[in-house]
């Protein structure tokens, strides 16, 4: 079983480059600023605004985590080493997915300090906080899987990052376009909207359909990444 070894190598590679630290630092500074300002202005023990901001930050920052995962391996030729070792493509993809999620989980978990502060100085409703964190992680997983797929299609990190960012932006806000279309196209586009599926989690309403949506995006992204790596 090579998955643990591969995953350890990917986590090591992510945390030996400054990108992971920069991404985590930017994430925590921006969310900390928002938490402080909103808390003093609204004086409410809630993290809803933090979850929405985290979602936007993930859209902006996940491309920086995933852009090099396959593009750099392809550019440097090391992808050839991996694909000619006795490994299956799914192991290579899974290792990079898990490693990227370690970074997403690390930066998300640092915001738990806000929940702790709310618990000390107020009486927060824990339901929306649990569902909000689940939503952030599911959104992160969906974005990582799409980012990996795009990284697997190019040898240029910048191209991978820019295309990922564009696609994330479209999927996030596609519901605004949906409003312009007649039925049933409106519903179809709404069904693809990351925002529409993330919002219930952020406000404490969890639906199986939203959970299923994110799970489907993750699995589809990973499947297409494996296909993109397929030996031509």
């Amino acid at each position: 079983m090579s998955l643990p070894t591969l995953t350890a190598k990917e986590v090591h590679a992510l945390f030996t480059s400054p990108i992971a630290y920069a991404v985590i630092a930017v994430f925590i500074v921006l969310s900390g600023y928002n938490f402080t300002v909103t808390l003093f202005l609204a004086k409410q023990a809630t993290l809803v605004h933090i979850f929405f901001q985290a979602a936007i930050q993930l859209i902006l920052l996940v491309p920086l985590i995933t852009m090099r995962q396959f593009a750099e391996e392809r550019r440097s030729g090391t992808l050839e080493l991996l694909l000619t070792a006795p490994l299956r493509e799914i192991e290579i993809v899974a290792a990079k997915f898990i490693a990227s999620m370690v970074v997403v989980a690390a930066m998300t978990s640092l915001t738990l300090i806000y929940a702790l502060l709310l618990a000390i100085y107020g009486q927060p409703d824990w339901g929306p906080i649990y569902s909000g964190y689940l939503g952030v992680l599911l959104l992160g997983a969906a974005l990582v899987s799409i980012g990996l797929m795009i990284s697997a299609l190019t040898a240029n990190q910048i191209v991978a990052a820019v295309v990922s960012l564009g696609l994330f932006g479209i999927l996030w806000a596609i519901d605004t376009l949906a409003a312009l279309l007649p039925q049933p196209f409106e519903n179809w586009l709404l069904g693809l909207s990351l925002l529409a599926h993330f919002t219930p989690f952020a406000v404490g309403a969890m639906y199986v359909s939203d959970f299923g949506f994110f799970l489907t995006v993750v699995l589809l992204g990973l499947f297409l990444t494996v296909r993109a790596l397929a030996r031509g």
Partner: protein
Amino acid sequence: MAVLSLDGLSKRYGARLAVDRVSFEVREREVFGLLGPNGSGKSTILRLVTGYLRPSAGTARVAGIDVVLNGTLARRRIGYVPESAPLYGHMRVSEFLAFMGRMRGLKDQNLARAIDGAVERLGLGSVREAIIERLSHGYRQRVSVAQAVLHAPELLVLDEPSNGLDPRQIIELRGLLRQLAQNCAVLVTSHILAEIERTADRVAILLDGKLLTVEEIRQEATAAPPASRLEALFLDLTQAKAIA
């Protein structure tokens, strides 16, 4: 017995046939050279053999195992040194070898023994704990060969291994390939006639993806100076084909 056998192996990219029905065998403990001008299909054949690419037609078998039908099993028996020796530059040599060994199923004492053996054979003792990206090209090439022989493969495949090496390193590489061939079959490509001539037991000459001939080198070396004979044969075949 053949360690590698290719039967009608072809690779098509759109309308272009990069490898056209190539068939040959590589025997145990021999160095088999693939010789041809740039773009003749040498590297593509190696990538088909190592499972990096899938053939459009034909088969490649390593120790009787089909590289497409049983890819993972076949790749366990292959050691591969890609062109330009791609490595993980941020790793130490020992760390990289341990990683590649684990990828091939080695662990614990077997892994430690394999790394010690490869480090000794490749003369990497002095750079064992060095960061790879700080190594010279010659040492990087040795590290690349070391990762390929860690698991004692039955077939060692090297793509243009002498590229970028200085003359002394090239001479060392020649000796190394002959030494490695005592334990496994070696398939090596080059576009430099003299390199193949001085290293290989047999050579296949390719042009435009087609196999033109397979020649014994060492047996005929007694009859004629290998350099001039092989060079003449190569030029003759490729020139005639190009004109036609």
